[in-house]
């Protein structure tokens, strides 16, 4: 049992740290959910990619470094420690790409991965529907098989329906999501995973202002949208299984690496140190220490996860344990910062932005109630709750 980095891992760490110190913008970029901020974040992705830091764990043929899992965690730690921008390409890079590597054809990998790595194409995730949130498998949007497409004559599918809370969709170029391709099949069967350009004929994107007023997500309407067979990910009808490998990634390691929280905990300590003595500081003291402890616990826990994965293990339902932890830590950490800011807490600041964003954590990527059900049923082995009427 050891927590030692190897010589090559230390060299990787030093290289990442040096590059980031030289290249991270001194001033934070405007929000990536504004048109201006979106373009500046894409330019940052291009810069990262040119130095081969945008997708370190991918193979070199797709702009990566073939970095190990340990190196990926190291890079993330350095990235957030350096105060580098949020990743506008995260839906594609962290959620879709693992599926493309696992289930995509060679042609799909060659077509989609390079532009994802450079930030040229930004992806939106389109899971939820107005009547299908936590109960995602009850989704109703349809895919109908057609033998000839409208222009090229190739065979494919016609999509109809509505998706909602689609992250990044207001400005993104492509989307991915599940559609019901077999209306006769049982709930989880008969779903197919599609990739589609958000400017395809029949697609309408309607941005939704989030709590902070910015259009971080959108509604997407599908009105006879043709998708060729080559943009189906995995086998038709196998979409649920394919999609659940994304869910595991989103909840588990890849979406919110510990570096984000250890860096935020360090900033919180600095804020605490700068806060004048008084009741606000006194009352927040325990929460400041707990935020540091919990971020440190997450850092160490992740090394445990990495060790298991190195041995060929699987995250499995432990991804749910992870997701509840980081999402609640994120809220607690930012609440504590606002407590320290006293009457200035309500004023625009980086802490306030972080706080508002943190409030979505316990909801997205599967609500924390769903995660607790998964933990109880799949880890503790408790009996399943009787479900309501099935479709």
């Amino acid at each position: 049992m050891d927590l030692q980095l190897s010589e090559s891992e230390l060299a990787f760490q030093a290289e990442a740290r040096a590059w980031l110190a030289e290249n991270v913008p001194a001033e934070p970029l405007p929000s990536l959910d504004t048109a201006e901020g979106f373009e500046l974040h894409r330019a940052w992705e291009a810069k990262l990619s040119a130095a081969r830091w945008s997708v370190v764990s991918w193979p070199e043929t797709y702009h990566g470094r073939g970095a190990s899992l340990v190196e990926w965690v190291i890079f993330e730690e350095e990235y957030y420690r350096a105060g580098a921008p949020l990743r506008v390409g995260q839906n594609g890079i962290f959620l879709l790409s693992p599926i493309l590597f696992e289930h995509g054809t060679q042609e799909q990998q060659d077509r989609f991965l390079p532009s994802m790595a450079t930030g040229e194409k930004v992806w939106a995730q389109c899971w939820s529907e107005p009547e299908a949130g936590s109960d995602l498998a009850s989704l109703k949007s349809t895919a109908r098989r057609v033998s000839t497409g409208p222009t090229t004559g190739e065979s494919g599918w016609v999509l109809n329906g509505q998706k909602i809370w689609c992250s990044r969709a207001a400005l993104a170029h492509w989307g991915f999501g599940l559609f019901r391709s077999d209306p006769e099949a049982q709930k989880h069967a008969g779903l197919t995973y599609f990739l589609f350009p958000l400017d395809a004929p029949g697609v309408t994107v309607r941005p939704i202002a989030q709590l902070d007023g910015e259009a971080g997500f959108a509604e997407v309407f599908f009105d006879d949208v043709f998708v060729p067979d080559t943009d189906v990910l995995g086998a038709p009808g196998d979409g649920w299984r394919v999609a659940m490998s994304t869910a595991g990634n989103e909840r588990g390691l890849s979406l919110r690496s510990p570096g984000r929280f250890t860096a935020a905990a360090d900033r919180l300590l600095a804020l605490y140190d700068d806060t004048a003595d008084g009741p606000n500081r006194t009352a927040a003291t325990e929460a400041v220490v707990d935020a540091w402890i919990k971020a440190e616990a997450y850092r160490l826990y992740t090394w445990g996860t990495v060790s298991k994965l190195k041995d060929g293990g699987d995250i499995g339902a432990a991804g749910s344990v992870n997701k509840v932890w980081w999402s609640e830590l994120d809220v607690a950490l930012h609440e504590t910062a606002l407590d320290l800011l006293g009457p200035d807490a309500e004023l625009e600041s980086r802490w306030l932005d972080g706080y508002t964003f943190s409030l979505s954590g316990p909801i997205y990527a599967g609500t924390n109630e769903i995660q607790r059900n998964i933990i109880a049923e799949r880890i503790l082995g408790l009996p399943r709750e009787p479900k309501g009427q099935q479709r």
Partner: protein
Amino acid sequence: MRFELTTDQRDFAASLESLLAAADTVSVARAWADGDHAPGRRLWERLAEQGVTMLATDATPVEVCIAFEALGRHAVPGPWVESAAYLPMALGREVEGIGTVAAPRALDADVADEVYVVVDGALHAATPGAAHVSVHRGRHLFDVTPGEAVDHGDLAAADDLAILATAAQLLGAGERVLADAVTYVKQRKQFGREIGSYQAIKHALADVRIALDFARPLVFGAALAPTPRSVSAAKVACADAAYLASRTGLQVHGAIGYTQEFDLSVWITKIRALVTAWGTPAEHRARILDSLVGA
């Protein structure tokens, strides 16, 4: 980088587990609480034969944590932290028989062959005085009167190992309460269903699982690099997680959990005692804060 127990360490944990699982430790703990120390002494000797009393001097803190997690899981009575973690570090040798040290009262000094107290940073032999009754009936606590000073090693390092061993004991106790609570809610039926199928129960127990899962890496991280900060973080997290386990375990058991006769009581009271033993949560948080933001 391999933050997982080695095969040897797993084997050691498994051998302690099989020894303790077959030792009817709850009866041993209940006898100890009633002042009958004979079964506890026999168990002490068997654990000493397995090497538990020499881990602090002859193995690494990782093995110490493995052993104390097992002691906590099985509610093994006696001054283990004092005799097998603190004193070997303080004295620079394994304790022959049973030893204890006042922190601030001496646990089970009536059973101990050697009793110590720290006065102004120096270790002294001590004589037990008045006894106090603990929330955990198996913990007999004694005031002490200092005697002759004795040679000692690094008392701060001894303190840190005792804190870490207490954290590991809390981790094991919390895991045990969770396991027993899960077993119970799968059997107990109300309104025609196992109560473990209700979300109110599921989510409460899921929160215990989460808290313990994130306390464990702090224990073994501190074992690999013991510092005042790392052992205090482990103690705070394990105390919080085990206490959550005890409160939740009691709640899901209902009235039967609130009886002394039901074995859950052994862990509920032990966890409450260990939360403030070897430094209160507030003291440990203050130590962490001092290390992070300076004076």
